[in-house]
């Protein structure tokens, strides 16, 4: 960087000439304007998306739509079982993801020094993070659906999503733990705490705010995942009584898969209506997850630290 600064140095004298200085100031102003517009355009796009989805979907979404059963071939179906399946798979996925990823994050952040094992785990996590979700879906198909003979199940879908989200959850854990001041560690150790006691009783509680925020944001991603589920959790629900099946072995078409599938098959004449409604519900869920993540993270930090700021 020193080089770049040096390159600028000889300019200083010449720049005393007025016109040149004005030119440079103009460039600066134009660049500033462009950067402002770039940012505004993207925020504008978001507003456009939100407005459009509300415009198309608002008239569709009502209580009957949210809780009703989908129909096989007539108009007027709802998305109740899809929402149920989305939350079912979400909770199942979190139940697998959180213990594994938080444990691994704790290990890497608090225990592992620069050992070989640490490097291998870190590299594996990075690699896992870039596996495209469709490829992960095919892996789930090979293993859970075919090798284990599970067929399309909520469990297979949840395990596939677990693989997909482990790296992000681990990262969130690492970052949350890294944000805890080193003094807490020292204090606990100096009181005769073992490393494990220090992590569980002093560090983890102090990291709970950012950790919660991270978990909720990842939950939002899980909720909207589609490609990895089509070939693992399946793209259909059982109709009638068993649409709200509590078993992990049930075929579980989630809301996002339903948006894709309803449009694709268009067995019902009002596939567009259902698509617009489902897209709006997904968007609102994402907005909710974002708001909850912020509020819950802040609240939890405050409650646990008791600090009244």
């Amino acid at each position, binding site marked *: 960087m020193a080089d770049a600064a040096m390159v600028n140095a000889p300019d200083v004298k010449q720049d005393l000439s007025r016109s040149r200085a004005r030119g440079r100031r103009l460039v*600066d102003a134009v660049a500033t304007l462009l950067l402002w517009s770039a940012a505004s355009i993207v925020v504008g796009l978001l507003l456009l998306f939100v407005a459009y*989805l509300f415009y198309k979907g608002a008239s569709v979404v009502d209580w009957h739509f949210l809780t009703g059963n989908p129909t096989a071939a007539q108009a007027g179906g709802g998305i109740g079982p899809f929402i149920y399946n989305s939350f079912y798979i979400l909770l199942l996925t979190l139940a697998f993801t959180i213990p594994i990823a938080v444990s691994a994050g704790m290990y890497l952040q608090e225990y592992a020094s620069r050992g070989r094992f640490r490097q291998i785990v870190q590299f*594996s996590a990075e690699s896992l993070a870039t*596996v495209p979700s469709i490829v992960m879906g*095919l892996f789930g198909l*090979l293993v859970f659906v075919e090798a284990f003979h599970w067929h399309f199940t909520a469990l297979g879908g949840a395990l596939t999503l677990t693989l997909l989200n482990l790296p992000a959850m681990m990262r969130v854990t690492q970052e949350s733990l890294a944000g805890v001041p080193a003094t807490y560690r020292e204090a606990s150790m100096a009181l005769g705490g*073992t490393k494990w006691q220090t992590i569980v009783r002093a560090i983890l509680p102090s990291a709970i705010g950012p950790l919660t925020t991270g978990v909720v944001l990842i939950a939002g991603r899980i909720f909207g995942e589609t*490609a990895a589920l089509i070939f693992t959790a399946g793209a259909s629900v059982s109709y009638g009584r068993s649409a709200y099946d509590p078993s992990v072995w049930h075929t579980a078409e989630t809301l996002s898969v339903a948006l894709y599938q309803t449009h694709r098959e268009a067995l019902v004449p009002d596939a567009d209506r259902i698509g617009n409604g489902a897209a709006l519900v997904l968007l609102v869920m994402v907005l909710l997850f974002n708001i909850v993540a912020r509020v819950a993270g802040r609240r939890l930090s405050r409650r646990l630290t008791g600090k009244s700021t």
Partner: protein
Amino acid sequence: MVGFRASRAHRDERIALAILMACSAIFVVAIALILGFLAINGTKLFFQDHVSPLAFLFGTTWDGFGGHYGALPFIVGSLVATGFAILVGGPLGVAIGVFFSELAPARIAAVFKPAIEVLVGIPSIVYGWLGLTLLVPALGAITHTNGDGLLAAGIVLSIMILPTVISLSEDALRVVPNALREGSASLGATRWETISRVLVPAASSGIAVAVILGIARAIGETLAIQLVLGNAPVLPKSLLSPASALTSEIIIDMGDAPDGSPFRHALFSMAFLLLLIAMALIILIRLALRKRT
């Protein structure tokens, strides 16, 4: 009076460590299994069905039941759509990263940043739905075509990679020491000159990582582009003619490709190719970061 002997807490410590290491090992096992399963299933086309890898990589005819497994149209489709996304979304994302790191007043950032976080969270299927119902008809009206094709896919991907590129390039710029900003300003440089000649070069490896992760996100994206590509399994004639990509073709054909058939094996070869590209990008990132140190 406490003695020095190892306590019960100490035993718990060892158990805990063992469990933590086991959980960490899951990551290693998982990626190994994924690579293994896809390598085996992705090469059956070559070893079991005796289709030459060259015919797969460079063949232009795709007919799963007719014995033609040329994946070049999809490889080209994936690369062009991703390339378009990087050319548009890359610079735009870096520019917005610069905006947040160097320009944005706190009050503006407080509104804009959450907006961008929402953009990350929108499911890809919703992006696809927006592309299908908003973008494609609009493009069709403007260009007097159907609107489907690589242009539509490229635009959708550009928007989808923005949040990744923005937040990572902003991070990269934030870690540039303030001394460089002050040094440049004290030599009489304007803010833009400081940004373009000092800060962006200083953050170049971080920005490179941001862009590479953008590529990774774009190349693996499936549903959002399947809905807008037009899905013709042929080499695209232009950005506005129907095309297909590796990911979208897999989702289209997988359900109907018979178990054990070369057709299905070819789809797994495409998935394996995607995985190899992803791994290559990870190695690129490592190289970019090594350069920094």
